[in-house]
C-alpha cells in the first residue's frame, strides 16, 4: 500500500503535532488507506498557514467550481448554489461515495481553466455573468477548444456538474449542501419532514 500524503506529512513534521491533530491524523491515515484515494486524506495540505477549507479541491479549483455551480443555480430573490453550500456537498462526496469522480473533476476543472484562458484570456470566475453563461454553453455543446479536452467529454463533465449541483442544492442538508434548507424554503416544503400530522385534505375531519 502506498503511503498517503498525510503519512508523509506526519513523517516530516512530527514536532508540530498536538495530541488532537495526531489522533485525527492517525484516523485519516487509516481511512486514507482503506479508501485507496490519497487525494482525500483531509489533512493533505496540513502544515500550511491558511485554514484548510476543502477536503478534495484546491482553493483555485473551488473558486472556479463555485462560479460554475452558481451559473447552474444562480441567486435571485432566493439563494443560489453558492449560498446553499453546493461546493461543500461536492467536495465531501468526492471524498466519500464519489471517489470515482475525482479524476473527472481534477481534469475537467483544469481543462475549463485552460479553455477560458484561451478563449477569454482570463479566469472563468472573473468573467461577467453573461460571458460565464456563454462559456458553459460552449461546454454543453462540445464547442470548447478540443485540444484541452482530449479524451474527456466537455458535455459529459458539465452534465456531471449539473447533476451534483442539483443534488447539493435540492438534497438533504445532512450532506453539506442545501444550507439553511434553502431549496426547501424556495419550494415551500416543510423541514424537518413533518411526521404524524399529515392528512390529505379530503380525509381531514370537519
Amino acid at each position: 500500500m502506498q503511503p498517503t500524503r498525510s503519512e508523509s506529512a506526519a513523517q516530516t513534521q512530527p514536532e508540530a503535532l498536538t495530541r488532537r491533530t495526531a489522533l485525527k491524523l492517525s484516523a485519516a491515515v487509516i481511512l486514507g488507506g482503506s479508501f485507496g484515494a490519497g487525494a482525500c486524506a483531509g489533512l493533505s495540505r496540513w502544515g500550511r498557514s491558511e485554514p484548510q477549507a476543502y477536503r478534495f479541491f484546491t482553493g483555485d479549483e473551488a473558486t472556479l467550481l463555485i462560479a460554475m455551480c452558481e451559473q447552474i443555480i444562480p441567486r435571485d430573490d432566493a439563494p443560489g448554489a453558492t449560498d446553499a453550500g453546493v461546493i461543500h456537498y461536492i467536495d465531501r462526496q468526492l471524498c466519500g461515495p464519489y471517489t470515482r469522480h475525482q479524476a473527472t473533476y481534477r481534469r475537467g476543472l483544469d481543462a475549463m481553466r485552460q479553455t477560458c484562458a484561451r478563449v477569454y484570456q482570463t479566469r472563468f470566475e472573473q468573467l461577467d455573468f453573461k460571458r460565464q453563461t456563454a462559456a458553459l454553453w460552449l461546454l454543453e455543446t462540445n464547442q470548447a477548444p478540443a485540444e484541452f479536452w482530449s479524451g474527456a467529454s466537455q458535455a459529459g463533465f458539465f452534465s456531471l456538474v449539473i447533476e451534483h449541483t442539483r443534488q447539493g442544492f435540492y438534497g438533504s442538508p445532512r450532506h453539506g449542501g442545501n444550507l439553511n434548507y434553502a431549496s426547501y424554503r424556495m419550494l415551500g416544503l416543510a423541514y424537518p419532514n413533518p411526521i404524524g400530522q399529515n392528512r390529505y385534505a379530503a380525509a381531514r375531519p370537519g
Partner: protein
Amino acid sequence: MSLSKVNVVIVGAGAGGGIVAKELAQAGLSVVVLERGEWPHYDNNNDDEMNSQRTPCHGNPFGPDDKRHPRVAIGDDGSSHIVRPSEGGGINAGCVGGGTVSYGAMAWRFMPQDFRLVSTYGEVKDSTLADWPIGYDELEPYYEKAEYEVGVSGDYTNNPNSGPRAKPFPMPAFPMNKEGRLIEEAAKRMGLHPFPVPMLRNSVPYNGRPACIHMRSCVGFACPVNAKAGSHNTVLPVALATGNCQVRTGCVAAEIVVDDHGRARAVRYFDANGRAQEQPADLVVVSASATETARLLLNSKSKLFPNGAGNNNDWVGRNLQGHLYVGANGFMEEEIYEEAGPGCTVGISDFNHGNAGLVGGGLLCNEFIDLPYHFCHNRPPDAARWGKAHKDFQRRHYKHLARLIGPVQEIPNFSARVSVDPVVKDAWGIPVCRLSGHRHPYDLQLGEFMAEKAEGILKEMGATGIWRTGISRSLGLSGGQHQAGTCRMGNDPKTSVTNSHGQLHEIDNLFIADASLHVTNGGFNPVLTIMALAFRVSAGITAGWKGSQFK
C-alpha cells in the same frame, strides 16, 4: 464445510421468499433463509433523498452495494458495459424484505385476461407470448391470502375491470389526494372508472402495526412505523416465531448443488464473513428475483445439467420482462401538492384490456410524491437543465405538477435474457448477470397508446403544458424493478422451466417462488402476484411434503 441438514433452504428474503419461509415453517419444516443483504433499519436510511432507493445517488440504501455486485449489460450495438447496481442495470433491492421495504406498495391483482393473452388476443409475431398454466380463478384464493396476511387497503366498488373477489379488502382504501380527486372527476366525465389504488399499507391499524402516518418521503424509503407492509415486518417475523426458521443475512448463494441423480442436495454460499459454506437440505426454493434466480440456476452446473440447473432446454433466463412505464405530465393553474404521502391515490384500469386492435394495455395512476431532486428530472423535452430558467421551473411548477403514469403489459421474447458473463465476477468470484436482448417492438406501440390516453385525461382535467413520459425511441433492455419471466412456468417442459407449482420440470426438489415464474407480467405492478404465487408454491410443497414426496 457442510452444515447440518435442514428441510428447506430458501434463497432470498424478498416478496416471495418471506412468504414461503412463513408457510413452510408453520407447516413444521425446518427452514433456513439465505439473504445477501441485512435487516433494514429506518435509522440507517431515513428521509434523505440522496439515500432513497429511487434516487440512490450515494449507492443503494437497501442494497445491493456498488462495490461487490457489478453486472454486465449489452448495448444495442453489442458492446458490453459493467453496470453498478445504483446506476440501474435492472437490479432489485438487496436486504431482508427485498423490494418490499422501499417499494411504492401498490397491491394489484392481475386481471383474468392477463393469464390468457394468447387465448384472448392470438399469437404475436416474433414473441414467446403464451397463456399461463393457471388462470385467475386458481390464483384468487392466494391473492386473498396475500391481501389478508401481508395487509392491503383498498376498495373496488368503482372498479368494474378487476376479476371476481371472494372477500372484500381487509382494510378500507386510502383517501384520495387533491391530484387524485381532480383526475377522478375528469376520468368520470370521460366515462372511465377511476378508483382508489389498493396499497400494501395500513390505512388503519392492522396485524399489530399502526396506520400510515403519510410522510412525504415514502416510495424509495423504509417506513418508520412499519405501516408499509413487506416480508420483513409481516411474514418473516411470523416464520421466526415458529422456532423453525432461521434467516442468515449477509449470505451470498453461489450454487445449488445438484447430484448425479439430478436432485438438489445443498446450497453452496458465502457467509457474512466471506467463508464458503454448504447448507444441505431436502429441498431448495429460489426466490432471488427474476435476474438473480436465473443467474443462480445458470451458475449451478452439474453432470446432468451442464448448462445450469433445469436448463437442458435453454429456457432459463429467457423472456426477461419488466414494464415500460408510460404516461403524461402537465401543470394545473392551482396548487395541487399535498404534504402527505404516499401520494399515489387514484387508479384507472379501463385500458388494461379491450383496446380495439391492440394486444393488452396498461394501467394509469397518479404518482407518488416527487421530492425536489427527483423533480429536477421531471421535465418537458425542451426545458432548460440549468440557469435561472431551471430554477424558475422548479419554483413555478413543483406544487402544480399533475402526473398520470403506469406499467404497460410487455410482450415477452426469447432474445431478452439473463445469462452469466464469461469474464466478470462479483466480489465472491461468482460469475455475474449478463443482460442482453431488447423489448418487443410492440411494447413501444402500446406505450404510445397509453401515453395518449394519459394525455387525454390530463387535458380533460384542465392541465396545460402537457408532455408524454416514458416513451423511448430505442427498444432497450427490459427488466428493472418489475423484472419477471426468466423461469416461466408451463405444462410443456420443452418451452418452460417449472410446472404450474413452481417445481422445476427436471429437478423435483427444486422450486422457484418469485416473478421468474410469470409467463407474462400483466399491465400492473407485479408484487401482489409474486406474493400470491409464493403462497401457491408453498401450498404445493406442503401437500407434497405430507406424502414424503421430496424425502
